[in-house]
């Protein structure tokens, strides 16, 4: 017992020192140091999933989501001059500290105007348009305009979903990807190897998951540690401290998990980390409705405080949420549950079910945010 307390104190001390170190090194005054980025993670997850699905026809787009690319990197990958110029102007405004919310929306509308003027079905223009939006999303996030970045993410999500579901210029698209067939599992994996690598290197520190692993939106769990925007002077100290912190955290967790004994690291239950979930999904090669359903369960559990125990069935859980959710949201969750049931227990694989599940999930989350 005493040893555990000592370990926890030591751990807290290390976290505090690392935290202060990170705060001192933080360059961006608008971003609250020590807290994760405000852009909802599940939106980003969905964007990643969709960008992977579109990866074959838009390699640049998939790349921009699966690496630690900076705004400059993304801008460099844009081919058309107009979107490139717009993003460069936004970057300059940010550097000079005169970037406003209105200006961002203005750049966004100029970008939309440009895209509308492009010929329909132009893959290159679509790719550049989405890349420019991605860059603007990163800029607005850096500038602290979370609402703008969320809006851009939603718009991107809509565009990417439409691209994947619709038959825009079939002659152009069908040659590269047959939309009628189920998407190959490797394209549906929420995270590619490259992304996972980045997660381990940087992202993990940014988003230390809570034990519940569920909160991904506005509810901050444990205070995170800022990205390593450190000065050279403190570089070694930073790495040593983070290493010690992680080691101590692992020891404490293992010790306590060992005591509890029966906690299983399964998605949607206590004890399953976010990264563990993603690996689990990847390993299991799960269909979209199942992934989306569990994201929805995690979301509802965290947002409405309706925990789902390991012995609760999907129908029982739906019943549990009845009193907590509005009629509309409950209907959306009911749709998701029905689709999940068909995919999971009736072994029905159907692209339309994937789309319906994604739509229901998006509506569930959007109806909360609007």
């Amino acid at each position, binding site marked *: 017992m005493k040893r555990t307390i000592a370990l926890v104190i030591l751990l807290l001390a290390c976290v505090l020192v690392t935290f202060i170190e990170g705060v001192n090194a933080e360059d961006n005054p608008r971003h609250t140091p020590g807290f994760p980025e405000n852009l909802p993670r599940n939106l980003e997850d969905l964007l990643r999933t969709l960008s992977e699905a579109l990866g074959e026809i838009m390699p640049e787009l998939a790349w921009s989501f699966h690496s630690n690319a900076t705004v400059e990197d993304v801008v460099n990958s844009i081919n058309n001059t107009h979107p490139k110029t717009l993003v460069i102007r936004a970057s300059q405004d940010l550097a000079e500290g005169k970037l406003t919310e209105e200006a961002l929306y203005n750049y966004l509308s100029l970008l939309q105007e440009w895209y509308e003027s492009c010929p329909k079905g132009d893959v290159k223009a679509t790719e550049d348009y989405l890349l420019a939006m991605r860059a603007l999303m990163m800029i607005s996030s850096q500038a602290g305009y979370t609402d703008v970045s969320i809006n851009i993410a939603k718009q991107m999500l809509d565009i990417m979903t439409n691209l994947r579901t619709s038959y825009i210029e079939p002659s152009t698209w069908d040659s590269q990807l047959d939309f009628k067939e189920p998407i190959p599992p490797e394209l549906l994996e929420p995270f590619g190897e490259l992304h996972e690598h980045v997660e381990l290197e940087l992202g993990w520190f940014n988003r230390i998951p809570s034990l519940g692993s569920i909160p991904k939106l506005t509810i901050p769990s444990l205070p995170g540690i800022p990205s390593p925007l450190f000065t050279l002077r403190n570089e070694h100290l930073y790495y040593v401290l983070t290493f010690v912190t992680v080691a101590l955290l692992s020891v404490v967790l293992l010790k306590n998990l060992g005591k509890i004994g029966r906690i299983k690291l*399964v998605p*949607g239950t206590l004890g399953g980390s976010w990264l563990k979930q993603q690996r689990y*999904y990847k390993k299991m090669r799960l269909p979209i409705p199942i992934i989306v359903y569990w994201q929805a369960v995690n979301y509802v559990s965290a947002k409405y405080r309706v925990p789902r125990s390991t*012995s609760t069935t*999907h*129908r029982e859980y739906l019943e549990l949420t009845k009193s907590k959710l509005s009629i509309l949201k409950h209907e959306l969750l009911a749709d998701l549950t029905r689709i999940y049931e068909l995919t*999971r*227990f*009736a*072994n029905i694989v159907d692209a339309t079910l994937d789309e319906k599940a994604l739509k229901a999930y998006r509506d569930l989350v959007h109806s909360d945010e609007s």
Partner: protein
Amino acid sequence: MLFKIIEERLLKTGIIVEKETEAKILTACLISRGHALIEGVPGIAKTTLAKSIARLFNLEFKRIQMTPDLLPADILGFYIYDPRTGEFKLRMGPIFTNILLVDEINRASPRTQSALLEAMQERQVTIEGYTFKLEEPFMVIATQNPIEMEGVFPLPEAQVDRFLVKVETGYPSSEGFKNILKRIDEIELAVEEIKPVFDKEQILKIMEEVKKVYVDDSIYDYIVKVVEETRTHPAVKLGGSPRAGIAILRLSKAWAYLEGRNYVIPDDVKIVAKPALVHRIILKPEYEVEGVRANRVIEDVLAKVPVPKP
């Protein structure tokens, strides 16, 4: 769909009052080729329920009132000498039917009880060395009174295990009781006048369809875990056997079919686990004395075993 018809004909017309679950379990038991044990005090419409279901499916129905002096031959049948032909002629017992109601089964002697064993398990009877196949569908619905202790012969474990389900039924609510009193003459007449909605061939076809209901691999795992967990519960002396698992699987398929699905979900398993396991779990005496019941043990088990994930 199937149960909707039963609901329309029996429950909504008031022939059976507040026995929806019991009727559904009995139907599930019938279409999964099982036998049912109904436990309840006398006068709570056990016979009416069995009779109504038999009539609805256009099945032959017979009833035996068990007494201590009843002999196996009284159930199975026997050979009798016919002086006109000079030959022994088979006089078939009441077991040669589709639905056999064995009233107060625990009043019969162990010898007579065991005569039912072969019929229930093998779906055949042996009389004087000759084996006779019983006509499908064949279902035994036995009843027993949980209160009486004297002059009864409790069913041995091997016999109890032959029943696919045990249904524990009780008194109706005050409102339901009043309803029965008001309409008693109509109910008696209505039972006799139930028009069949299915025939034997349709029932046999349904039985085949039930076998084809899809069961995901994770559901098999879930059933295995539930049955195994009954063996490790501290209050349990003897837990579920593989036959208990088979019972859960068959009933889950039947339940899914009655619900209009062609695949099983964990909810089906949870619903049927209680009637399929309750008579197969033997509790330790010290827990029994404290008032622990098999039902509670099953609830504990279901609350503990994780449902299939993700």
